[in-house]
């Protein structure tokens, strides 16, 4: 009987929503379910995220994510910041994809102001966004492997991250929070030699890519820990609102770079790696191969950046006209949406964020039910999320 069958059987025996039995067994030998609180400060949650597990032995009867420990009120703060300041703010809700976040806000404001962004700026935005995606995915490769007890991938991933961060720092001045966008384009053009350096780093990361395949993705112990763990069917994923690599792992290549292209994504080939079963292995597989896909995109962009300005003349105070818009972008972790509503003032009237991590963790109770405790950790690591992005 495989692990999955055991889980099915267990799930069939305990109906969902059933009241937690305090006592199981009979006679003198009685056991009780144990409630185990993973977090808010726990090594596997990389942040202040909490899951309360009801355990029957090591098997999870029920998992309840408790969120909000890191609520910083971004949406409210944004109502009191002008658009330039918001850019610095949204860099920080998903701190591993700062550029993609600020890109979303910039696109939303530009859409409302009906701004035509210079071509060159669009291509450079795309270039930096893809580098940002790789940065993010490298981090999760390291952390997921670490959650399964493999320490080395983290160091390899950080070696690559260092090279990429140095590259991006030379253009944006930041290593994590880039604040490189501005409404209407970019703050400043790339420094001389950036594209050559970018091509060099791209080749370097590509040459080290097989290390990850050999060290983790091909490892039998890793297979044992991730294959068949926490399978997620496509329909469930869609009903929960899961997106990004977690959704692609279920076999659905829903990616707004392809289905609803923004910037210049319609002019280049975007590959979306997909999985089959939606289990932890497939999620990780998609994550790792998205790095390769992003490197392909970067190599395409290098030759296609046109000459021209990177920003356009802005009014002294950027004010979005009265109205509302919704912009969605494919963030490294999934769909990021900004609902921007303005009353014509210098600050938004409302900025609603639809963050990928928040939606993705909604799948956790479904995924963890009936799994073993170590599998619960494996699931936690494979549903890629950033706590700041959940709590905002």
């Amino acid at each position, binding site marked *: 009987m495989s692990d999955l069958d055991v889980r099915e059987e267990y799930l069939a025996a305990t109906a969902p929503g059933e009241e937690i039995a305090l006592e199981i067994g009979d006679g003198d030998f009685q056991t009780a379910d144990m409630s185990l609180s993973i977090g808010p400060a726990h090594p596997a949650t990389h942040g202040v995220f909490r899951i309360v597990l009801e355990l029957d032995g090591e098997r999870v009867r029920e998992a309840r994510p408790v969120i909000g420990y890191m609520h910083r009120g971004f949406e409210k703060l944004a109502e009191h910041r002008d658009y330039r300041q918001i850019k610095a703010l949204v860099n920080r809700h998903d701190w591993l994809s700062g550029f993609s976040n600020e890109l979303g806000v910039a696109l939303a404001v530009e859409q409302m102001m009906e701004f035509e962004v210079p071509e060159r700026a669009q291509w450079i935005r795309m270039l930096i966004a893809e580098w940002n995606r790789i940065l993010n995915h490298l981090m999760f490769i390291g952390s997921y492997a670490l959650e399964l007890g493999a320490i080395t991938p983290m160091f390899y991933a950080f070696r690559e991250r260092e090279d990429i961060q140095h590259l991006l*720092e030379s253009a944006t001045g930041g290593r994590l929070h880039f604040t490189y966008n501005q409404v209407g384009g970019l703050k400043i*053009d790339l420094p001389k030699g950036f594209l050559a350096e970018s091509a060099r780093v791209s080749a370097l990361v590509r040459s080290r890519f097989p290390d990850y395949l050999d060290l983790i993705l091909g490892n*039998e112990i890793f297979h044992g820990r991730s294959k068949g763990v926490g399978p997620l069917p496509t329909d469930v994923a869609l009903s929960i609102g899961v997106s990004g690599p977690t959704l692609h792992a279920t076999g659905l290549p829903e990616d707004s770079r392809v289905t609803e292209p923004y910037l210049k994504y319609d002019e280049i080939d975007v590959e979306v790696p997909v999985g089959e079963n939606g289990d932890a292995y497939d999620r990780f597989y998609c994550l790792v191969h998205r790095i390769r896909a992003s490197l392909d995109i970067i190599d395409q962009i290098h030759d296609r950046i046109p000459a021209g300005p990177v920003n356009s003349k802005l009014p002294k105070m950027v004010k979005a006209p009265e109205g509302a818009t919704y912009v969605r972008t494919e963030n490294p972790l999934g769909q990021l949406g900004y609902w921007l509503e303005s009353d014509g003032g210098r600050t938004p009237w409302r900025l609603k964020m639809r963050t990928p991590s928040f939606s993705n963790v909604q799948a956790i109770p479904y995924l963890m039910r009936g799994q073993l405790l170590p599998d619960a950790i494996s699931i936690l690591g494979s549903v890629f999320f950033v706590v700041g992005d959940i709590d905002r």
Partner: protein
Amino acid sequence: MAASAPPGIGLLKGLGVTVKHLFKRPATLMYPHERNVLPPRTRGVIALMDENCTVCMLCSRECPDWCIYIESHKETVPPAKEGGRARTRNVLDRFAIDFSLCMYCGICVEVCPFDALWWSPEFEYSEYDMGEMVHEKEKLREWADTVPPPPPLEEGAILPAEVKDAIEKQEKERELAAAAQAEAQQAAEAPADAAPAAAAGAKAKEPEIQVKAGEIDQETFDKLIAEGKSERLARSKAKAAYVKKEKARLKAEAEAAEAAAPAPAVEEPKVEAGQIDQETFDRLIAEGKPERMARSKAKAAYVKKEKARLRAEAEAGAEAGATADADSAPGAPESPDAAAEGEATAAAPPPAEIHVEAGEIDQETFDRLIAEGKSERLARAKAKAAWVKKEKARLRAEAEGGDAAPGPADEEGGA
């Protein structure tokens, strides 16, 4: 998906990857002992050139964290002319940034209309107590010396208008310089008059003083480190000190060698700093400039005028032909615009005459400005500009000396 390899292959591959790295060089940078070279755009710390600050409060208002504290008072400036209107101006008393609140977004640097705020890649300013993260303007001013020049832009970039203008101007100057150079060469080829050529040779020694980059003045370095300065800062200052010393030494040598030869009296007149050109000062104050700036400019103006006077006297006495005096050529060097322009052109690579290389500066001007308490950066920029100017004047003089035919006035007009 992954092909089903025979079991165990994956395990062996993992061992292979790790043992392969065992024999590679570690990626670690041994941080306190060796340092990374940070890109010029790095947002390390916010530096303040307080002489540029007009207390407009834009930075403080735009800061999303409200971590910039500015205090100032108003001063009444007496009217420049009798019967004129008295003006008020803001004097900066306190400028502090609380780096424990700062989120390094760079909005203050972006909005500053007078280029008083800069990003410096300096990052070693951690403290044991959060309260000590508030850094005052003196500290911020020190960081301003570590601000690197901005990197050139990538191929295909459209330059901002003001940068483009500056580059065009530079190019024009370069052409002029090339023409002057060609004439000078002609003059050198024709050995009609030995004296000016010798003089030119003797004078050329000064700019030829080459100082290798990278060497530092150990004494200064140690002193600054002992004072608790950051290494980067100490190094840059020590380099400057080294350059200064080295140049002084070489110059002294050259002078000693020159002493024997009968040099025409082109000896730089010595002018004591400290006196100011009252006229300029009054004018600037009347224009609403801060007193500090006005005074320093007035000083410069005084020095310049005095020198011009002395030189004119000396030349008049020595040789009738050599009346070319470039320093008096620009009509009103005291005007702030001209000064700013000079600075702007100097910040970009200086106009490339064949002898003019980046890094060569007019030591005298540099020393004078430093003595006046200007920042090193500013002093260097101005000194560079001054050097370029002198060099041009020299070349022109040479050309005239060799070619005797065209009148000096015509040439000056050309400049």
